[in-house]
């Protein structure tokens, strides 16, 4: 059923030229529910001083790829980013870990 409806919709829309914007559609849009699965990432941060702090605090909101694709950034830039995550985006970071996280990030070699 849903396949046939999709085909109808495709035909209807494909035949709607820009010039026909104001004319009523011959057939109203039919909506079909969507259910998907999103992939997960099991990537963690490479070993190094502070890796445990980064793995424990930074993966709740985003996968590691967000960090590991960043260019070389200064300690000041990483400090600003970590502060933004904690204070604006409310990342549940253990305050005792913040220094170790900044140290790890600033030492990364892209």
């Amino acid at each position, binding site marked *: 059923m849903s396949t046939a409806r999709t085909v109808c919709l495709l035909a209807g829309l494909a035949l*709607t030229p820009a010039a026909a*914007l104001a004319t009523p559609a011959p057939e109203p*849009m039919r909506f079909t529910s969507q259910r*998907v699965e999103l992939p997960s990432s099991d990537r963690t941060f490479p070993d190094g001083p502070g890796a445990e702090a980064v793995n424990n605090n930074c*993966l709740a909101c*985003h996968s590691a790829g967000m960090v*590991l694709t960043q260019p070389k950034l200064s300690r000041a*830039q990483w400090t600003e980013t970590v502060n933004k995550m904690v204070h604006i985006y409310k990342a549940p970071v253990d305050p005792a870990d913040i220094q170790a996280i900044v140290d790890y990030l600033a030492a990364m070699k892209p």
Partner: protein
Amino acid sequence: MTPSAIPRRAVLAGLGGLAAAAPGWAAGTVTLPLPGGPDTRDLTTAFPGKGSMILQRTRPPLLETPFDVFDQGVFTPNDRFYVRWHWASIPTDIDANAFRLTVRGHVDRALSLSLDAIAQLPRFEIAAVNQCSGNSRGLFEPRVPGAQWANGSMGNARWTGVRLKDVLDRAGVKAGAVQVRFSGLDEPVVDDAPDFKKSLDLDHARDGEVMLAYAMNGEPLPLLNGFPLRLVVPGWYSTYWVKMLSDIEVLDKLDDQYWMKTAYRIPDVPGANIKPGQTGFKTVPINRMVPRSFVTNLQDGATVAAGAPVAVRGIAFGGDCGVKTVEISSDGGATWTPARLGADAGPYSFRRFEGSLPALSAGSHALKVRCTNTNGLAQPMDPVWNGAGFMQNGVETVSLHVA
């Protein structure tokens, strides 16, 4: 992996909705021209509704369109259209019958509209480029933090749906309204973090072009592009094109929440272009797009034959208006030749251009391409820079090796 990471990651699956195994993960890699790196990205086919995409981030998804897709036509296929989410709590199961769009706030009648009710409104269709504010951020020099996109966080589609004006008219906007705020079904994964919301001025919201799209390129929106409804703001950066749009709130004062007041701000100078380290400028919310053009049939560093004309093909867009001209230069910008423009699908669409370089002598040549829009605004010769990596539109250069 550290032992202590295990319990945390066990929690993650619960926070992020369904966590599936990832077939199609290893679909190859791509090298992006990101100065200083890291420049290698996986290609992935693991995301629902998506073909081969450049994996910038798995969760929440950041998927970039491989650039060769833009050579195939002016409309970007849905399964190759880029993806960008702010927060990782993304509904993965949307019941089309139960879904409701609320319209509330400074209105005569609050509404709760089903998809079928929305589809009863007059149908509206427009071709428009959707471009991330930070498209090309990864190419900035000096580099800046954020999603490290090359040039593929943009796409062009034919959007079908209804005008926002018609929806607002049904609710009846009260006198004194100033802005309209939009929010989708996605949510932060932690308490008290700012839910993603964006606002437009009322006159803009009612201009008859801003719309709610339920289809792109003649098909339902892929979930990752905002099924079942997405705000479309032709000519404006994608940050305003709220996905999974579920709530429209008419405001009687300016929106002062984080995503308008603090995030997505640009220097209030022409082209948002400042010098690294510059301070003392005012900021405003990012808004209208600016012209861009790209060669799509020749890659940077390509080798072409000496002594024969070189065919050049690409795409351009005017930003917040149409394309007036596209010019090409084979001498680094000293002289320019107009390109032929392809079919006009509307002022907010990509537009194809084609041209031919004269026979070149052996050696290195810099091919440049420059779009001027119908408002007379031309791409700047030098790259744009600002600390957020927004609004890049400098003239692109393709180095050609002629032999």
